[in-house]
């Protein structure tokens, strides 16, 4: 599914919003500034330098399996999106965008009548009775063999057996990351942009390039837009371990696009669009865009299968009475056509509601493709600004699509199974070429509604939040004839975000006070980037917004204490009595943190720090056995930090402050692997693969107390400082039974201000952390050293090399950027652990 990333640029899509800048109209607009309504609009126009962070949480409801057991958790996705728009020069814009999604949970893999399903012995899930002979009547209704009261064999179609149900499989967490950039140039009445990016996930890697243009004419009442994009995607999907044995992968093998364990494919997607935006009158705008898309290559979903039932109508095996047939049931990986031409036509209409200063947005999209799908989308939103910077937007949407020509929930063949000499299915002799039972290609409708609210603060900051509920149902299909109710599902999506208008901030803060200049000096001489709670705000009413990124990597040798150990010792000793079968190859941790600070008084600064965490690692086999590399990843919201910083001593050149606060367990400490993740150990039939190890959980699970004491000194160009900080777990164990060890860290640094905008620092850090206390109170197999609570923490010495730059002038004046690399110098691990390679800290902050 190519998902378009309609980045941002609300203002850019409004030709008038943009036309205000550097055009001949500017003079006229300025002349009209006396009018109060236009004053607002020019502020909006000035938002060329903008930074935004957006978090989204998607949660699907549980599927109805009509009485079959379903212990899987439904799909959930945690998304993080951060974007920056910068005006590099008068007419040149750069936008950078980063998206990260982590998803996990259960999804339908195929569909069959309930009578063709087998309930799993472990009670976890049900699967299609693949490869076995089943009994059906002449119309493919499932039959069950039983004895009648008179003691004779009978074949009955039981109530409920004809009900279609999904077979679900569940996936361990996986993370996708996307980075893209767009560079734009503007003329007075036209604009052009070029962009591109990459999207990476373990089984699907894409790169894409795009180009777009805009041309205003008819006194800027009419705007023509055109765009072109190309996406190349490489698919290397692992065959689903839980579905092995149920799915026939041989078609992919025979067509030479598969290795033993993977499905390899490539697809290419082109898209071209042409659109027109027209100002209708002072209060209304309409826009209409046609988009043609062409996809070619492997367009199937490598995680979906179609179920075939073959019944030879002429069979006579003498075993069953007349009217009872033996049929063969097989699930095969879905196979969509390798070409898809699509056309979409979008129309949007915006009407100002003058009495209430609101705006009504109406949209309609018609879509058609050569797979036989057409769809209609109607949407309605009412944007209503309220008092004091608040605004509220209720939304409603209706979507309806017809099914693809080749879509069927299950495929019945009134013939013998065409066989290869090895008795597997001969796909070349099937009467159909393409087949898919993916609900996305079925006929259905969807109703959704939601609300978003936003609050703009005077200092160019906007907070927003939204909620949407979505209900997918065959019965909602326009004109009827949609898929049956077994495929219905719903989800909700919540999101929260922060927007910072950098240029609005700097122009405002520079207007007539030297408060700002003071900030610049303060931050350019600041502590190294990796030091948290490094400064307080200066004055009551000050606000700071920052973003902090930390990356840490472990890779290389296995160590015991301070020395390297061989794999054979790890295998024998690192997992307690039973020994280890695996060791980590590497482990990466990424943390994205928002740094929000506010000073209610001169001596107190409050700080809120939401986090987003993602981790990935490999596990390798220790000493023979299977040589497969296991990849694991997790991600999502981390623990939420809430702190108060108090100034203790503050005079020229010397600042001392303390921070007291808590970390709330908003992250997860109970993430599990799925069955099959540890399949090599023969546990594949278990419902769950057990908890993923302690270090891969996104939160501590405990309320933590985090005190710190920080000293900053400065004389002429020299700066120095020190900090001692701690993390004390306030609970001896979390809900899943364990608690991480307490942490004590001390660091001292010195630095030199090289220019008025650049400083460099060097820092020494010593960290002590205890082992994990207690252990998981649920199933948690010990395969590797990381599964043992004793193999956590230790004593670590690092040296940090940092630089910090503060933009001295221009639109972005006052923005501070810092980087620090932490180089491990010595390790003394508790137990057996993987060597540390280093850590990177980067942060951006802006105070005003």
């Amino acid at each position, binding site marked *: 599914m190519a998902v378009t990333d309609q980045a941002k640029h609300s203002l850019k899509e409004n030709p008038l919003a943009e036309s205000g800048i550097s055009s001949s109209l500017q003079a006229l607009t300025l002349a009209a500034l006396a009018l109060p309504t236009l004053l607002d609009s020019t502020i909006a126009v000035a938002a060329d330098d903008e930074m935004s962070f957006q978090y989204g949480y998607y949660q699907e409801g549980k599927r109805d399996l009509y009485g079959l057991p379903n212990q899987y958790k439904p799909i959930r996705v945690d998304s993080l999106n951060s974007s920056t728009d910068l005006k590099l020069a008068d007419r040149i814009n750069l936008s950078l965008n980063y998206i990260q999604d982590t998803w996990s949970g259960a999804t339908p893999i195929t569909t069959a009548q309930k009578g063709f399903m087998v309930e799993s012995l472990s009670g976890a899930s049900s699967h299609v009775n693949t490869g076995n002979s089943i009994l059906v009547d002449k119309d493919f209704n499932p039959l069950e063999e039983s004895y009648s009261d008179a003691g004779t064999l009978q074949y009955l179609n039981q109530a409920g057996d004809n009900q279609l149900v999904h077979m679900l499989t569940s996936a361990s967490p996986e993370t996708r990351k996307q980075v893209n950039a767009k560079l734009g140039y503007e003329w007075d009445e036209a604009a052009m942009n070029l962009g591109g990016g990459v999207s990476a996930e373990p089984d699907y890697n894409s790169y894409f390039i795009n180009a777009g243009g805009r041309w205003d004419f008819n006194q800027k009442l009419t705007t023509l837009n055109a765009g072109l994009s190309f996406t190349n995607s490489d698919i290397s999907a692992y065959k689903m371990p839980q579905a092995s044995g149920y799915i026939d992968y041989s078609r992919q093998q025979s067509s030479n696009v598969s290795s033993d364990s993977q499905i390899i494919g490539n697809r290419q997607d082109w898209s071209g*669009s042409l659109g027109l935006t027209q100002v209708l009158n002072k209060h209304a705008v309409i826009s209409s865009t046609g988009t043609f898309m062409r996809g070619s290559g492997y367009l199937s979903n490598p995680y979906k299968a179609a179920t075939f039932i073959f019944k030879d109508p002429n069979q006579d095996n003498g075993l069953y009475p007349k009217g009872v047939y033996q049929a063969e049931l097989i699930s095969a990986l879905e196979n969509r056509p390798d070409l898809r031409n699509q056309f979409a036509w979008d129309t949007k209409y915006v009407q100002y509601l003058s009495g209430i200063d609101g705006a009504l947005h109406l949209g309609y999209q*018609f879509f058609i493709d050569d797979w036989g799908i057409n769809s209609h989308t109607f949407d309605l939103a009412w944007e209503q600004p309220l008092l004091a910077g608040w605004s509220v937007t209720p939304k409603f949407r209706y979507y309806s699509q017809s099914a693809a020509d080749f879509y069927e929930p299950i495929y019945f063949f009134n013939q013998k199974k065409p066989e290869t000499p090895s008795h597997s299915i001969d796909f070349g002799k099937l009467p159909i070429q393409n087949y898919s039972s993916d609900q996305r290609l079925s006929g259905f409708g969807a109703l959704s509604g939601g609300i978003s609210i936003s609050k703009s603060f005077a200092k160019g900051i906007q907070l927003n939040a939204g909620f949407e509920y979505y209900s997918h149902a065959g019965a909602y299909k326009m004109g009827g004839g949609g898929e049956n109710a077994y495929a219905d599902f719903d*989800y909700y999506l919540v999101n929260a975000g922060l927007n910072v208008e950098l240029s609005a901030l700097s122009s405002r803060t520079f207007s007539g006070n030297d408060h700002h200049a003071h900030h610049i000096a303060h931050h350019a001489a600041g502590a190294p980037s990796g030091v948290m709670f490094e400064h307080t705000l200066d004055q009551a009413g000050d606000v700071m917004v920052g973003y902090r990124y930390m990356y840490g990597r472990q890779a290389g040798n296995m160590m015991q204490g301070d020395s390297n150990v061989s794999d054979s010792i790890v295998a024998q000793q690192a997992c307690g009595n039973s020994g280890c079968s695996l060791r980590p190859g590497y482990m990466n941790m990424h943390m994205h943190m928002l740094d929000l600070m506010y000073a209610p008084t001169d001596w107190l600064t409050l700080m809120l720090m939401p986090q987003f965490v993602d981790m990935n690692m490999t596990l390798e086999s220790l000493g023979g056995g299977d040589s497969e590399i296991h990849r694991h990843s997790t991600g999502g919201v981390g623990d939420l930090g809430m702190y108060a910083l108090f100034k203790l001593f503050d005079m020229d050149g010397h600042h001392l402050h303390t921070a007291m606060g808590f970390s709330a367990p908003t992250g997860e400490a109970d993430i599990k692997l799925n069955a099959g993740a540890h399949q090599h150990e023969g546990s594949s039939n278990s419902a769950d693969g057990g908890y993923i190890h302690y270090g891969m959980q996104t939160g501590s699970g405990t309320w933590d107390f985090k005190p710190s004491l920080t000293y900053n000194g400065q004389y002429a160009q020299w700066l120095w400082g020190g900090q001692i900080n701690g993390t004390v777990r306030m609970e001896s164990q979390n809900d899943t039974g364990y608690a991480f060890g307490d942490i004590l860290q001390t660091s001292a640094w010195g630095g030199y201000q090289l220019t008025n905008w650049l400083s460099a620092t060097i820092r020494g850090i010593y960290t002590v952390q205890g082992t994990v206390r207690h252990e998981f109170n649920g199933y948690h197999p010990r395969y590797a050293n990381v599964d043992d609570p004793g193999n956590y923490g230790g004593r670590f010495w690092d040296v940090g090399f940092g630089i910090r730059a503060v933009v001295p002038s221009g639109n972005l004046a006052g923005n501070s950027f810092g980087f620090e690399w932490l180089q491990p110098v010595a390790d003394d691990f508790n137990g057996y652990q993987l060597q540390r390679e280093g850590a990177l800290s980067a942060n951006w902050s802006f105070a005003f």
Partner: protein
Amino acid sequence: MRRTQWRLKLVFALTLLAMTACTPVQPWERGVLAKPQMALTPNTGNSGLVSHVYGSREAAPASSGDAGGGGCGCY
């Protein structure tokens, strides 16, 4: 298919009609049009996320953008 063509014609006709209904708007009369709530895609951080989800759940593209990317969305 015939019904589809009919719908296309209707939408096209309505669009043409709308365009002929334009009244000239002088630059100093465009204050309302430049308000944030009048942008064609307002509240963009949110709408990007929402359309990303539609795109991974439905056959049609969620927005006729030319950006590319978005990943598999295979779940």
